[in-house]
């Protein structure tokens, strides 16, 4: 178990994108408790690409803990790429996560973050939420 755990972490930290995606897919099939434990250290990494992977991975485990971690990430994260992915992951939690997305839209100045929130609400019957993030 520890051996596979190590190889999974190595894959997650690999510079090769395909290996990272492979690791994320493996993590998605694992028990949430175990997967989230592996993802938390990545959330605190200095490398934005690893933080991005972490928030992507958390989106595959719809638990209150991962929702909490993602909402926390929205508040402390400064990188637009990571914020964008965190928003995408949070969207899967449904309407309970939408107020945080609206807030993110209004607090971020980055086009990628704003476009992300709009694109997410566009992908479904969420006219009321879309109205709150009208593009200026």
């Amino acid at each position: 178990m520890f051996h596979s755990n190590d190889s999974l972490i190595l894959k997650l930290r690999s510079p090769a994108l395909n290996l990272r995606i492979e690791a994320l897919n493996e993590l998605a099939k694992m028990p949430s408790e175990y997967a989230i434990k592996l993802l938390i250290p990545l959330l605190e990494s200095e490398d934005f690409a690893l933080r991005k992977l972490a928030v992507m991975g958390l989106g595959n485990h719809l638990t209150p803990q991962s929702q909490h971690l993602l909402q926390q990430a929205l508040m402390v994260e400064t990188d637009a790429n990571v914020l964008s992915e965190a928003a995408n992951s949070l969207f899967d939690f449904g309407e309970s996560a939408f107020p945080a997305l609206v807030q993110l839209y209004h607090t971020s100045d980055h086009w990628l973050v704003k476009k992300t929130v709009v694109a997410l609400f566009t992908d479904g019957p969420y006219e009321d939420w879309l109205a709150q993030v009208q593009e200026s």
Partner: protein
Amino acid sequence: MATDLCRLAAGVGHPQSGLYEEVANRLQDLITNGTLKSGDRLLSVRKLIQQLSVSLSTALEAYRLLEDRGLIMARPQSGYYVKSTALQLLWEPHSTQLSPKVCCEFDMSLAFQLLSKTPEPNIIQLGAAVPSLDHLAKFLK
């Protein structure tokens, strides 16, 4: 379109910094070859990332690049669409190739030699003014 995107997905799995450019170029190809026609709605960003296994930022940057190229447009609260002018833009030449002007050396000393000979009576000044016919008629009277 799904099959074409599957082919696209096969080509975008490798790690490259310009991944979004690759996605944009492949989508542009779909517009060029007529798979995507003007007015067609593009896949939603979330569907695109699912089909291509790319990140959301990659998908959004690809759509933004296509917007910058004038090929697609975002309609508020609706999504991305192929612009009616997309094909026209793709068929127009990107720039006109102007051939450089050929410059020849000109020997200025020849001009000075001619100027210096103008007082000589046996040299006709072809550049001199010629009176109009009206003036000549008056002169002949």
